């Protein structure tokens, strides 16, 4: 009898605690991802930023990190495994990072400067025994200037870049630290380095707030809380990741209680999800869904008046209604209030009269109608709902006398064309291309589009934009090593970009996710990522 009472008490206790004090709450969170497979777990995830979100940040740490604890402002860069960093004033291609002491990998080995060097070499040093060509693709493009690393002492490391680059600390959020000791231990049982990385992926060791306990490729990954985490520990006991690429299957899985959280529910299913008591979390993401203009001779968008007119003709609120509220109108690459916003004098809004005036000034009117040809895709990661959205724009622009023709091509082909430039035959004479992009890193947000050195096929300056003024602004930003100074330089770049209407800015994604009412504590940051230490199950 006594024992029974003990049992009952023991059973009742966690429940009481959970309701009283969320910090002690726990539970298992089952997440339905949009990816078709579990993103790679060896430290450099594939599957785009969804990979970083679910098998990067929870399992690993990088030297620098994003602050994902706030929903009310854009996520900022914070210390991760490095506590502080600075560029060498005498050699601006040399950075010194001071590492966090007393951090251990999941296998118990300590995190040191040697581990950082080892992790840089895994993707950049072809001679290293643990070099993994498969990890290069997803890593090198995200830190294009990083060249090598050198340990100074146990907790200090120097990183070298090919040219002065103040953006390096931001890039480094993508280099996750895997455990060298664990890899070496696995290497002894495996015939090749490649096989060792496969074994490491099945049984990884990082420093993150969760540890991987089970991996069934293409079906599920399970991770449990790392109780020895160096920072604030997770509230959840366990996370289960399920790849469900089908938007409908995700919705059905949430509605039939097979998962607690789904990424990107189809906008059309949102009312039904709300009606069934599900929570819908949204927040603007550093994401831009634009039309990127072509600046070559044949393109009417070469004329800044036309670019401004199109920007003014679009009814972004109407588009938001179409998407059931699942977007944020874009009036620049970053939203007003962002440190890089600057103060553009050209104010993007809906003003069809002004748009008509600008078009007339540029020589277009009922006698000489403007026809724009835009390359778009029917689907694709980050592309939101490309067909209905573009069709909406087409109808909108017809009201100011602009005809829009679409060249609908397959997503991967569109993505490839993006690097070929608008003068290439693949553009088929298009005046604009509709490829969405991530904008949390200044290189990806602005530099690769507006720097003349980045003209296709080097990078994504598809429109072949070339203006020495912008090249100087980019160089100034790259050479501004004080964070405040760098932000100010980027703000000048951004304001200039908006004034020249270098994009037709249309929408920011709001990263919608739907979750069961039992999920509490979730913070939806203004980021592609999320802090999985915060939510818990009630």
């Amino acid at each position: 009898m006594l024992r029974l009472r003990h049992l009952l008490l023991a059973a009742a206790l966690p429940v009481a605690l959970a309701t009283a004090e969320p910090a002690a709450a726990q539970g298992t969170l089952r997440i339905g991802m949009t990816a078709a497979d579990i993103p790679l777990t060896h430290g450099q995830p594939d599957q785009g930023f969804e990979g970083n979100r679910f098998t990067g940040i929870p399992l690993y740490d990088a030297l620098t990190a994003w602050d994902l604890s706030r929903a009310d402002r854009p996520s900022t860069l914070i210390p991760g495994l490095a506590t502080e960093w600075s560029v060498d004033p005498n050699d601006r291609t040399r950075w010194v990072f001071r590492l966090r002491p007393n951090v251990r990998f999941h296998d118990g080995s300590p995190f040191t400067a040697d581990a950082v060097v080892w992790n840089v070499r895994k993707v950049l040093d072809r001679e290293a025994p643990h070099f993994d060509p498969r990890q290069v693709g997803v890593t090198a493009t995200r830190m294009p200037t990083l060249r090598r690393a050198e340990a100074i002492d146990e907790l200090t490391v120097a990183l070298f870049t090919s040219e002065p680059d103040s953006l390096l600390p931001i890039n480094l959020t993508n280099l996750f630290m895997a455990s060298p000791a664990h890899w070496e231990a696995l290497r002894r049982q495996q015939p090749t380095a490649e096989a060792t990385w496969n074994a490491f992926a099945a049984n990884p060791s990082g420093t993150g707030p969760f540890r991987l306990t089970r991996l069934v490729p293409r079906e599920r990954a399970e991770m449990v809380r790392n109780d020895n985490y160096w920072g604030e520990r997770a509230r959840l006991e366990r996370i289960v990741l399920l790849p469900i690429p089908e938007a409908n299957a995700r919705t059905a899985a949430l509605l039939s209680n097979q998962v607690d959280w789904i990424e990107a529910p189809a906008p059309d299913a949102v009312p039904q999800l709300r009606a069934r008591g599900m929570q819908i979390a949204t927040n603007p993401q550093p994401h831009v869904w634009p039309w990127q203009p072509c600046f070559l001779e044949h393109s009417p968008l070469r004329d800044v008046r036309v670019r401004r007119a199109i920007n003014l003709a679009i009814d972004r609120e109407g588009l938001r209604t179409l998407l059931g509220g699942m977007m944020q109108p874009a009036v620049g690459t970053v939203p007003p209030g962002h440190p890089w916003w600057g103060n553009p004098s050209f104010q993007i809004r809906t003003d069809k009269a002004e748009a008509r005036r600008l078009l007339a000034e540029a020589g277009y009117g009922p006698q000489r109608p403007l026809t724009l040809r835009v390359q778009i895709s029917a689907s694709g990661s980050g592309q939101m709902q490309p067909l209905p959205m573009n069709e909406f724009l087409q109808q909108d622009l017809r009201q100011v006398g602009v005809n829009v023709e679409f060249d609908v091509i397959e997503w991967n082909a569109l993505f490839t064309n993006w690097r070929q430039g608008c003068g290439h035959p693949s553009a088929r004479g298009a005046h604009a291309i509709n490829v969405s992009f991530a904008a949390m890193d200044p290189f990806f947000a602005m530099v690769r589009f507006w720097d003349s050195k980045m003209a296709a096929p080097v990078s994504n300056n598809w429109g072949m934009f070339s203006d020495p003024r912008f090249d100087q602004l980019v160089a100034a930003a790259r050479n501004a090593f004080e964070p405040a100074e760098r932000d100010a330089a980027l703000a000048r770049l951004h304001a200039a970009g908006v004034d020249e209407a270098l994009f037709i800015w249309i929408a920011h994604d709001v990263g919608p996710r739907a979750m069961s009412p039992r999920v509490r504590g979730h913070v939806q940051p203004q980021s592609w990522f999320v802090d999985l230490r915060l939510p818990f199950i009630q």
Partner: protein
Amino acid sequence: MSSTAAAAELAVQAKQAALYRSEGYWAGVWKRLRRDPVTIVCALILLAMLVVIVFAPLFAPHDPYQGSMIRRLRPIGTENYPLGTDELGRDMLSRLIYGGRLSWFMGILPVALAFVIGTTLGVTAGFVGGKVNMLIMRVTDVFYAFPSVLLAVAISGALGAGILNAILALTLVFIPPIIRVAESVTTGVRNLDFVDAARASGASALTIVRVHVLGNVLGPIFIYATSLISVCMILASGLSFLGLGTRPPEPEWGLMLNTLRTAIYVQPWVAVLPGACIFVTSICFNLVSDGLRQAMDVKG
């Protein structure tokens, strides 16, 4: 499906059909057909569909490509939009009518192509026999070793998405079964008395094939081919459903079903309409094919 059995059965029919081939035979077929209301009704449904989709501009109340964001996903029975609107606010009725064009095209063309190619090869194999037969039939066996869906998915998956690739893949899928049936029926007919008689009278091989063999084997092969149309239609829209066939914004039933899937929670009845169209068409083709076979089966 179990085409060996079907082929054997058809061969028997062909022999009997050959014996009974006369005005009286066709009159009997027609008489039997008239007494088969199911076949008649299905044939009429198909005929009506054909008329509607061929003269789509006359029947479709709206432009199938013209949408409007303010009237998207309206339910069935909306004024002016009797079958509702799709996810882009396009009229469902018009899209279904125009969509039928491509769906029928992709259901019939591969079978028709396979009918021509398969009959040629099958009759050649059956009539010439020997090594030619051996060669054609062994190659057929290889393609027979693939389940049809798998073969279609494999070929169009390797070639990449597109209508032409899908048609090519489906044609390849249906050639082997038609060859088998054609070969088996031809072999059956070849040994019949009147062919021997024609041969004895000194007719050339080509004449024999044209006059005696083709006349007697085309019917059964044709009936077999009609039974493939329903399979082909389901497969073709399945390819579009997987993103391997038609591309948006082209209306096609399989693709419409795919793009409307996200709306299944908002307007389930509208979202399942394209599937219902495929279902009705395919069941009608199946029943008509069954009815024809029974009507032409003298045993029946």
